């Protein structure tokens, strides 16, 4: 674990900012589960509880003009990148005020303003898109990085291989960031990947720089990303990062997650990144109970406001169904006069 002295560039405000973001994500997810139970959110809901240190640690190292691409478990990354909790909650509820205008939903959050290039719900698909964004950066001679998140399950997919290989051979500025939470949906990675316990080494097949990090330690994640960003910006090509972590909840709210051994679950409960960071802040004498109480209260308020915003927001207009399919022409078959 790092000491405060190891990160002199981080002020108390910075550090409490990380704490606040993690806490916001956690409480946001709790609220979204409640809203799901109340029927205000439908479909699938994949929460990020337990993995907050990754999104917060990694995304905060980026510049505004860098790109974030992620998978369907995307609320944490969206919030860490700065999409408003209101807009994210409204999207989960399918409201017109959502960050994808209610069209995308929980698994497909986007913000062009923040270069948040989307949550992608086809496991592995986003790696190819991230490679393409990296290609564009290189083509233009810029020095942005593309940070692409995916799960350990995605490593099984052919698209993982194709994207990693392309990025490697063309030296693209992409950081492939694997949130290794030990499970796909219900299948343990031990059963699907021979290298599950040293997953980062799979990148050797592409001659790619590779790293493993404690995904439940926000400062370690940040520290590693700072270093990698420098290399990637300098044109040293892509990197593969594997952050070990655990989802504290089931795969989706429909999943009781009873396939996981008790001792594993309790081990990881003890690794919860939020109490860990809170303890660290306390031990290092950076923050007090009062600081946390204030932040926590403030987060609660924000989450309540987000839920309220979502609930009170209007649905998209019926006409909106046909908007946005094409840039240059209307969608086919917009109902007009008399055809059946």
């Amino acid at each position: 674990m790092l000491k405060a002295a190891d990160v002199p560039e981080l002020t108390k405000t910075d550090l409490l900012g990380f704490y606040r973001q993690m806490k916001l994500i956690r409480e946001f997810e709790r609220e979204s589960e409640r809203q799901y139970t109340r029927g205000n959110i439908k479909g699938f809901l994949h929460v990020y509880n337990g993995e907050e240190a990754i999104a917060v640690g990694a995304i905060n190292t980026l510049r505004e003009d860098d790109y974030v691409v992620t998978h369907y478990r995307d609320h944490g990354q969206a919030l860490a990148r700065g999409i408003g909790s209101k807009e994210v909650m409204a999207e989960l509820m399918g409201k017109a005020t959502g960050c994808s205008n209610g069209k995308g939903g929980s698994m497909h959050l986007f913000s062009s303003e923040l270069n948040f290039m989307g949550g992608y719900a086809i496991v592995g698909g986003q790696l190819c898109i991230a490679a393409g964004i990296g290609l564009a950066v290189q083509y233009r001679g810029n020095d942005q990085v593309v940070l692409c998140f995916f799960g350990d399950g995605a490593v099984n997919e052919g698209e993982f291989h194709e994207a990693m290989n392309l990025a490697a051979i063309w030296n693209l500025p992409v950081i492939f960031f694997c949130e290794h939470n030990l499970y796909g949906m219900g299948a343990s990675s031990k059963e699907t990947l021979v290298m599950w316990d040293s997953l980062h080494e799979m990148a050797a097949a592409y001659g790619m720089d590779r790293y493993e990090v404690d995904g439940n330690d926000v400062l370690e994640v940040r520290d590693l990303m700072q270093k990698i960003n420098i290399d990637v910006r300098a044109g040293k090509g892509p990197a593969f990062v594997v952050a070990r972590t655990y989802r504290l909840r089931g795969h989706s709210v429909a999943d009781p997650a009873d396939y996981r051994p008790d001792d594993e679950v309790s081990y990881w409960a003890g690794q919860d990144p939020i109490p860990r960071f809170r303890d660290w802040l306390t031990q290092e004498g950076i923050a007090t109970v009062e600081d946390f109480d204030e932040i926590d209260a403030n987060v609660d308020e924000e989450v309540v406001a987000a839920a309220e915003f979502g609930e009170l927001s209007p649905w998209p207009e019926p006409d909106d169904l046909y908007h946005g399919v094409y840039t240059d022409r209307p969608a086919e078959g917009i109902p007009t006069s008399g055809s059946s």
Partner: protein
Amino acid sequence: MSVITYRDAVSSVLREALDEDERVFLMGEDIGPYGGAFAVTKGFYEQYGKKRIKDSPLAESVIVGAGVGAAMVGLRPVVELMTINFSLLAMDQIVNHAAKIRYMSGGQFSIPLIIRTVTGAGASVGATHSQSFEGWYASVPGLTVVTPSTPRDVIGLFRSCRELNDPVMFVEHILLYGTRGEAPDSGDFRIPIGQADLRRTGKDITLCGYSRMALVAEQAADILAREGIEADVIDLRCLRPLDSETIVNSVKKTHRALMVEETTRLGGFAGELVSQIQEDAFDYLDAPVGRVAGAEVPIPYSFPLEQLAIPSAESVAASARKLLNRS
């Protein structure tokens, strides 16, 4: 006769296959301890063990491809693609390999492979997870495409599929798992592949659908019945082979027909039905064959928009009324 859910019907025929035939094994994502994304294989792993319930990596191409290989040498795999949306990642194996190996090998190898998958919109899961590609597979020679809409059909059709020696796409519907219906008592009960089901008879119009849209057509017929309009309702049950005879005979009686499907209209499968009807019952038609289909958009996540994007009993009834007012 007992009443069971569609989910139970699928589970029961899978158990039956595993119990009766050592050559059968299941393979797919999260079908093991997790019990399947739609809880169809709950308890299977515990009962049948790892050898027969193969919880596979998240890798659609090799799930199907490995099924093809195993089938080529005489096993009878039943593989699961969690939803038909992900089948795009396995399409090479399905279309370029499973469907063609028999023909390309001059008949030397058969591929007795059942690919179970889940189609449909209406579950609020967004555009990437709400598609209906069964019509595409239906256009591939070498495949058989089955789309049961009731527990009874699941059972009767699955048993018949097991007796085939060629690849089958067995397409379940995401919104049907919880629906209930009567289960046939007899273990001998079969529904022949390629036989549509005339679900309801009426003289005024033919409503024809498949998968969940067959049920929607039935509901529309209920609505119309209250208005004194009597409809033949046909559930296609199989898209390939396609039972056009039942449809054409119905239209010869009713003189009017409306095709209902969930996928988008332009280039949907309904065009095939329209074509066959007008080819074989041209002189009987009192009005053009109508189509009710999904809106020409990626399925939106937002609940009210999604509802607008897919056919409902009301929208089917409305289109039927229009067709009847004509001429």
